């Protein structure tokens, strides 16, 4: 676009429309936040609308007194960290292997890529998980996510674009395939691995249906699932907390309400994403450009 141009009516409209779209996208996040730090009584009546009223942060302390929530946070965190590490490692290694003269390489590559385009359906999948013993099992959060064809394609394409001479010279020096992978390939492909790590961790953190389908053991509940339940049951939890804290020593305005619990738990769920988002934002633009259009 030309650098010097008059600010015309077109620009005015264009800026205004984009400002509006941006506000619409971001307002729910802001609204959620100001409600968690405002007077709970006003907030539960919907009177906190554009700016916080009677600032306080006790909701964030209260919310961790909810039984099971801290544990759910730990579950979410561990599945995200462990799942992401294994997904990244597997994608990197397998993507690399598929650039080597492996036995039946073409066939096995197709074998993987085809799985992107079909699935057996929910019930057969559920019954398989049941028979594999993956219901009420932490591994259900990890194992199905490890091998992901799309990520493997990304790595394979990326490895193919790196200079072959590097690998050859290492081979002459006597390095085996694994050694070449760890000392030559891995450092070269970190940009694409960062992208995969981002996608994978967001998926893991946000995943909620696998808990819904496979888990009944409360010890394995994740934050997203707990949040979903609170969306429906927040009233009774607020009641529970009122009783357990005796209500006497509490400031009435900041006593836990269904609204305060819902909003605060929501904030706890979204906070990690808000915190890391600015850092990973520059990565995924590159990542999606590499892999987006053609698989």
């Amino acid at each position, binding site marked *: 676009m030309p650098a010097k141009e008059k600010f015309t009516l077109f620009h005015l409209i264009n800026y205004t429309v984009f400002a509006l779209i941006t506000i619409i996208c971001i307002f729910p996040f802001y609204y959620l936040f100001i409600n968690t730090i405002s007077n709970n009584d006003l907030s539960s009546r919907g009177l906190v609308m554009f700016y916080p009223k009677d600032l306080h942060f006790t909701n964030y302390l209260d919310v961790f007194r909810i039984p099971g929530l801290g544990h759910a946070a730990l579950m979410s965190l561990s599945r995200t960290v462990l799942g992401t590490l294994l997904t990244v490692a597997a994608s990197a290694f397998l993507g690399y292997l598929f650039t080597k003269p492996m036995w039946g390489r073409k066939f096995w590559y197709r074998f993987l890529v085809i799985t992107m385009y079909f699935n057996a*359906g929910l019930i057969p999948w559920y019954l398989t998980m049941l028979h594999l013993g993956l219901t009420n099992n932490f591994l259900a959060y990890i194992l199905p996510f490890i091998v992901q064809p799309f990520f493997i394609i990304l790595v394979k394409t990326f490895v193919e674009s790196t200079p072959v001479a590097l690998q050859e010279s290492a081979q002459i020096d006597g390095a085996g395939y694994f050694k070449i992978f760890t000392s030559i390939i891995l450092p070269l492909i970190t940009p694409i691995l960062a992208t995969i790590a981002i996608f994978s961790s967001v998926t893991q953190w946000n995943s909620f249906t696998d808990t819904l389908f496979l888990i009944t053991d409360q010890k394995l509940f994740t934050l997203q699932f707990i949040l979903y339940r609170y969306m429906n049951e927040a009233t009774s939890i607020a009641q529970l907390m009122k009783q357990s804290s005796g209500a006497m020593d509490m400031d009435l305005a900041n006593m836990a309400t269904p609204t305060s619990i819902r909003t605060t738990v929501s904030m706890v769920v979204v906070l990690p994403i808000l915190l890391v988002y600015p850092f990973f934002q520059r990565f995924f633009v590159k990542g999606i450009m590499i892999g987006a259009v053609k698989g």
Partner: protein
Amino acid sequence: MNINHASKPVLNSAAAKKYQSKDKYQLFLMALPFLVLAFLFSYLPLYGWIYAFYDYRPGIPLSASEFMGLDWFTSMVSNEIQREEVLRVLRNTFAISSLHIATSVLPVIFAVFLVEIRSNRFKKIVQTLTTLPNFISWVLVYSFAFMLFSVDNGFLNNFLLDMGWISRPLNILASDDHTWMAMTLWSVWKGLGWGAIMYIAAITGIDQEIYEAARVDGAGRFRLMWHVTVPGIMPTFFVLLLLSIGNFINNGMEQFYVFQNAMNTNHIEVLDLYVYNIGMTNSNFGFATAVSMLKSLVSLFLLFIANSMSKVIRGESIF
């Protein structure tokens, strides 16, 4: 990648061949654990299609279950109640997918106009903030929806009542009047900024000289957009469009599951949610499997159609 390529005499070819033939099995063994995982989670479930031919109840082994043959399939057509259910669910699926495809031009428009913004900082802020909703879960989206639109303390109702524009609160979440549209709007809210990223990348890739040339020829802003920018991103748009046709019958269930309630179920129940509701909630495994089996076959069929369309239109297949 081939290490004994003729132009690269690293090892003499006989030695290389021997070296390789030993290695190709070793390489395969390294990949094997991952291939097993793929088999377990993607291929093994296909065996579960067998449940579509039995009257399976959880807890009773398949061998003790009654063999139904094609009864679950024929009852979709012959049993009047089931037929109506399936038709209703198909109607919802098709309506929501069509709206989804209709709104897939929005990210294109978004991208085309965003590159016209001159301030780089503003552009960056818009891009960052509009992409954010893509990274949150549907549960959280529902939580937002609840806070903004609930009857007694939602933002919208309070705002409209304050302004005196309405006299009674609107119950948007528990209303079946505009369910398809509401679901589409939520998808747009969540995906607009993210969807635009790829088009912005495509526009950045357009040769600046084409713009210069067109400008010399006297093309104005809108002509440049229409005759240079839009054709430049059409290939990307078509690939994505064809992919979404292949996915026409797969709406997923998360979004609809969280927004589902007693009031709107008539219009929100898409195929995936229906399979969940009859299979997991009502334990009707046989019928649910039959429905999802047909669904998988239809989507595979659609994918092939999309792929051959791609071959005809663009001379290139998408997979």
